[in-house]
């Protein structure tokens, strides 16, 4: 397994270079370094000197990919792409275009992101699995059909509606929790209740319906009939027999998301004023802050690759027949 993991990590290097290249090209197709300078300097008195100074100060005064004025290897190394990309592989994210240290900001924002996304994720999985198993238990009944209709209805509603509706009802009309904000320490719970509730409720439709499909496939297997014939209680059948056997597809969808939890949630964080990495990314895109966008895409790529490796490893845990080689 160790060799497998090493091999997968080595595969990650060209993937990361490709992702970085793609991000770079996409960003600079719509934004030149001059555009970035104007955006950062403001709309007034933006003299050519100020633009050149900004570019020099922030390392955007070189060619993008190829430096025709340089010799030898420097034709490649003396470029914006090389200068900005190489540091990423040493996890040196540098400074944002507004001058803040990106690593420090990422570290500080990771906590609030996890504080919201982790409980949403865990509670969401738990609720979805329980609801799906319950529906499976009443398969082909009116309850099952009603549940599927409800799931489809829940899936059809926009995530924004859950957020705004939740804020309007729970925080504005009933005044049970603050409508938005974030405080560290013991007070943090009152700020997490609503976003977690919204996140869980918004995910029930899609999640429970998907799990229901997985569980139904297992519920018709012979071993389930055997378990019932042995006299197992329905709960034991569901949780001890069906659930473990349906784990592989569940893990495929779930474990890959675990590392991505660090990246936070764009919408939830923005609407609930949570200073996490999701809103960090969104702010950076709005502010045309390439340094942050590039760093966040890079971190996201790494986490995704880690998630895929973890998924593979989790297969061996869920199904002893699986061997990684």
């Amino acid at each position, binding site marked *: 397994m160790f060799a497998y993991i090493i091999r997968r990590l080595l595969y990650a290097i060209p993937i990361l270079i490709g992702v970085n290249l793609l991000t770079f090209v996409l960003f600079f197709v*719509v934004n030149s370094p001059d*555009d970035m300078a104007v*955006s*950062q*300097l*403001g*709309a*007034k*008195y*933006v*003299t*050519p*000197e*100020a633009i050149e*100074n900004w570019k020099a*100060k922030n390392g955007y005064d070189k060619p993008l990919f190829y430096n025709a004025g340089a010799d030898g290897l420097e034709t490649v190394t003396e470029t914006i792409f090389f200068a900005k990309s190489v540091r990423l592989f040493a996890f040196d994210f540098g*400074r944002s275009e*507004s*001058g*803040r*240290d990106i*690593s*420090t*900001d990422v570290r*500080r*924002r990771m906590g609030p992101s996890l504080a919201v996304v982790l409980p949403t994720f865990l509670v969401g999985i738990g609720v979805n699995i329980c609801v799906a198993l319950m529906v499976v*238990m*009443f398969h082909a009944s009116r*309850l099952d059909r009603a549940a599927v209709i409800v799931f489809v209805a829940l899936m059809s509603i926009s995530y924004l509606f859950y957020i*705004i509706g939740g*804020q309007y009802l729970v*925080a*504005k009309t*009933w*005044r*049970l*929790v*603050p*409508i*938005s*904000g974030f*405080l560290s320490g*013991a*007070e*943090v*719970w*009152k*700020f997490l*209740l609503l976003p977690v509730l919204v996140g869980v409720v918004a995910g029930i439709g899609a999640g429970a319906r998907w799990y229901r499909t997985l569980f139904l496939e297992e519920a018709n297997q012979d071993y389930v009939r055997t378990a019932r014939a042995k006299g197992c209680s*329905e709960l034991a059948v569901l949780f001890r027999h069906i659930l473990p056997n349906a784990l592989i597809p569940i893990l495929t969808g779930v474990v890959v998301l675990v590392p991505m939890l660090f990246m936070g949630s764009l919408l939830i964080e*923005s*609407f*609930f*004023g949570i*200073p996490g990495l999701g*809103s*960090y990314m969104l*702010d950076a895109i*709005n*502010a045309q802050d390439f340094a942050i966008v590039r760093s966040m895409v890079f971190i996201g790529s790494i986490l995704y690759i880690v998630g895929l490796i973890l998924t593979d490893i989790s297969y061996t845990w869920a199904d002893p027949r699986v061997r990684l080689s």
Partner: protein
Amino acid sequence: MLRTFLNKWDAVPAPDSPDQRPAQTLHALALAACLLLAGCGKGPWNNPHPPPDGDKVTYYSVMSPAPPKHLDPAISYASDEALFLMQIYEPPLGYHFLKRPYELEPLGVERMPAVSYLDATGKPLPAERVDEAAFTRYHLTVRADARYQPHPAFAVAENGGARYHFDDPAEGRRYRQITDFAHTDARPVRAEDYAYAIKRLADPRAGSPMIGFMGRYIVGMETLSAELDAVSRDGWLDLREFDLAGVDVLDERNYTITINGRYPQFVYWLAMHFFSPVPAEVDRFYHNPGFAESNLTLDWWPVGSGPFMMVRNDPNSEIVLERNPNYHGDVYPSEGAPGDRERGFLEDAGRPIPFIDRAEFRLEKAVLPLWTKFLQGYYDRSGEVHGNTNSVFDRAFVVGPEGLELADDLADHGITLSPDVKPGIYYYGFNMRDPVLGGYTEERRKLRRALQIAFDVEEYLNIFYKGNGIVAHSPIPPGIPGHKGGAEGINPYTHDWVDGEARRKPIEEARQLMVEAGYPNGRDARTGEPLKIFIDVQSQAISTTSMNWIDRAFSRIGVQVEFRPADWNRTREKLLTGNTQIFSHGWLADYPDPENFLFLLYGPESPLLCNCDGANNASYERPEYDELFEAMRVAPPGPARAAMVKRMVELYREDAVWLFAYYPKDVYLNNAWVHNTKRHGISKNTLKYLRINPALREQKRRAWNQPVTWPLYAGAALITALLLPAVIAYRRRQRATAR
């Protein structure tokens, strides 16, 4: 203990009889769960603020919709950043809080600067020969009682050197916040600090947006820039070792600034944070190795001598200011503009300021939470740089017999209005070099006037800006000398004065002008081709509905419209190259002088002529206008200058340079416990005048935020109702025999 607490809770009655107990136990359990989850805090459950810090009077407000990007006084150039900088720094001059038109007054200096004019050899000129001045010199005297806030940069070690001066980055990295430093100290503000700040403007590495603009004026600034650019540096560079010819430090409290030629508006720049003092030791402190990794920089932790100092800077969530214990003190003004006494703005006259101890600004990106918290009493005002009332305008206001009034529920809250006509202008300009619409022949003027009349600005503002704007008949907004109201202020080419109000000329007149311009019914009389105009707009700044409205407006005179939406960078490129026919733009004044608006039409400011980011995007070139502008720019205030301004406005109207323009208007809402809320269009250092009644705020917050608890029970009942049939069915199935 829980029961004791619950008994005190208004919404929860104490158990009176045994038969009530089951329900009340359920009630208590639900409440206990909520309280636990709500952090067991006192007061309303939905309070988003941490418990107050002792008896400090705290002001709660927002930064919206984005946090500041720069707080270095040399770099920052945005009003949402000035909101913080101007509470902390004291530039030499400031503005009177209440007087209108805006009036400058000493702030960091003892008196208004003494101005002298010099000839080319540097000798003073007598008053009657100021026209010959090659230089202007401003003499400033720093106030004797100005002292910096406590800060670790001033802390001294036993050996007399700076206490926090490191060589090893690892030492610097031990500190994360400015509050991590155990030792702080302070010292008086000196003239050399003001000189140091100006040298920072000249330093290309500092990245000041003023480097090009001020380089034209301050003597020797361009030379110093070139010199500093050539210096290789590793870490801090002591700018005291470099000379700036135009800035002389005479002694500890006196210094002079010498500028090229005459530029009377320079005094207004002295009221901006660019000219605030920066002590060299602070600059060196922030260059300690390892500090930048923790964002311990002057760009994030300003150091000043103003009424407040920054104690927390988390731009991701909040910025907190606290009263500077070393502030020299000041009193609330005793004079104001007409009507200020009646509106209560002079009730605190002569009282020492600031009135508040602490100000917390929280980041709010979405409008609904901001608005809700304001109505719940958790924010004292609806906004700082923006009123944030546009999105909720329909619900907040009604049109009453006396114009705009608050809706009943808001009026019941005791909310007050602070309207603010900003000293700025938004406009759609013609490219005067355009072969179809540009030019100075009478036909072209008539064509542009026809388009001006067809564009019903009043209707446009009512529909798309909910009336938050005033039709501009000239480039000079209200509050700025040169602005005229009433009959004499209207543009006679587009409006008539009828029954005491400006009335747009009828569309028939526009049609007639089209005929005279050679476009009867919107078609070129020579070719028969329909006239099609192209409007460049910023995609974020216009909606499909407003484009449809504009299309319809021009169709009344047979003109077709094509919009070319683009982002700001692309629009800017078009403006710089003159590749546009009609464009949208805006300008917010730096200082309250007509020169700061009339230069938008000054010929040499055309990007096509100066090959720069000039302000005259219409490329308007009229020799008479340019001559008048050059004379007006250096003329002292008085009738002669006013006459020049009047003539320039006449020329602007005659040539119909802009399709339409309006002065932006904003409305800020204040909760009942907030006083001295008059808006100042130019200056942002008004926090020190704000007064809060914390007792009333607390009372109102409690009254407005009683939680509604029945949904908790309803939710529990719903879940039970959903689960119960399942449980019953499950149990039945478990008991069933095989079939």
